């Protein structure tokens, strides 16, 4: 369909113009922020912070409190170092994401217990950030979230099927203990033991992926 193709081209061109306009606007906001306009800094943080928290910090740190600490540290660094930011035509988000990953890395390095992400994993992500961070935050966020979800799914796929089901139902779907026990056809006390063993197997599976 000729009209369909022309329409798609036109839509694509329009989207391109909108992207250019958005990028120019962001560049102007960054320039104001670098000139000392704190409202402009706030504007950038309001735009990108929630996505950074949800897609990058929270999955990697595994706790709301730690993710908020990392976000707070990230914002402090942005305020401190916005003057050093050099516009490279890729927008503000890739810079913010690397600062966020570094804040997460500092927290992970200080922790001893096993979480889903280890400091070395985040260090690898920082190394890759230079070439692999998409310009578009929506795309970057989706990739970050998919990477986290894939890691859990891959580890669960290595478990005994009943262990995996116990974790999925009780932890991921947040179903009540008694309901999961009924679904697995065991008593609640037996389910507790099953879940306890599933945790040990899951840790082992996650560790084996490193």
């Amino acid at each position, binding site marked *: 369909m000729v009209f369909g193709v022309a329409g798609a081209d036109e839509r694509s061109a329009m989207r391109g113009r909108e992207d250019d306009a958005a990028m120019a606007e962001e560049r102007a906001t960054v320039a104001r922020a670098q000139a000392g306009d704190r409202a402009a800094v706030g504007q950038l943080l309001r735009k990108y912070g929630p996505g950074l928290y949800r897609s990058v910090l929270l999955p990697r740190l595994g706790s709301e409190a730690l993710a908020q600490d990392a976000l707070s540290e990230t914002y402090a660094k942005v*305020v401190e170092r916005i003057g050093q930011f050099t516009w490279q035509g890729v927008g503000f988000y890739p810079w913010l994401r690397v600062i966020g990953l570094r804040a997460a890395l500092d927290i992970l390095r200080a922790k001893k217990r096993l979480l889903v992400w280890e400091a070395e994993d985040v260090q690898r992500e920082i190394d890759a950030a230079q070439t692999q961070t998409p310009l578009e935050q929506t795309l970057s966020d989706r990739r970050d979230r998919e990477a986290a979800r894939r890691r859990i799914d891959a580890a669960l796929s290595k478990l005994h099927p009943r262990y995996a089901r116990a974790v999925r139902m009780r932890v991921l779907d947040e179903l009540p203990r008694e309901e999961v026990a009924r679904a697995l056809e065991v008593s609640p006390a037996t389910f507790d033991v099953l879940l306890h063993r599933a945790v040990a197997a899951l840790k082992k*599976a996650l560790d084996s992926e490193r």
Partner: protein
Amino acid sequence: MVDTHDESPPDDLAACSDEERAAASALAAALDRPSGHADATFLRAVALAHAPTALEQREHEALISRALTRPRAADRGSVVRRVSFGVAAALSVAAALALLVRTSPTPTGPTRLAAARSTQALFDQPFQAGAASARIDRIAVARQADLRDNRFAQWGVR
């Protein structure tokens, strides 16, 4: 594939010790209320990695507000300096310092970048003429790392 077959079957409670039962019930209790239980914390991290929750707008605004109202490190540094001098001299010196720091684009000092240098340090043994080697690979990896570090340094995120 992790071998789970060497472990006790999940429903075989005959192979379950009293210690394991106690640990399992402690975990079950910890999942129902906030606690510092290590395994419950781990499972919470798993859940958040799989389906992260959004940050509440009120909490986000508080974080932004804190960052924007906090004095910059450069400004805090100038306050410390002021104490070292007499009152009259301190005011003028601190004002001059504050002015200098505020107008500087790089408050933490100039960025140090990796410079061009010999590749000799990358090789501890001479290469044999005509034989295959990883020479170019090693140089490329080292220079790629330099480039990445330099970019991060210029971005102010090293």
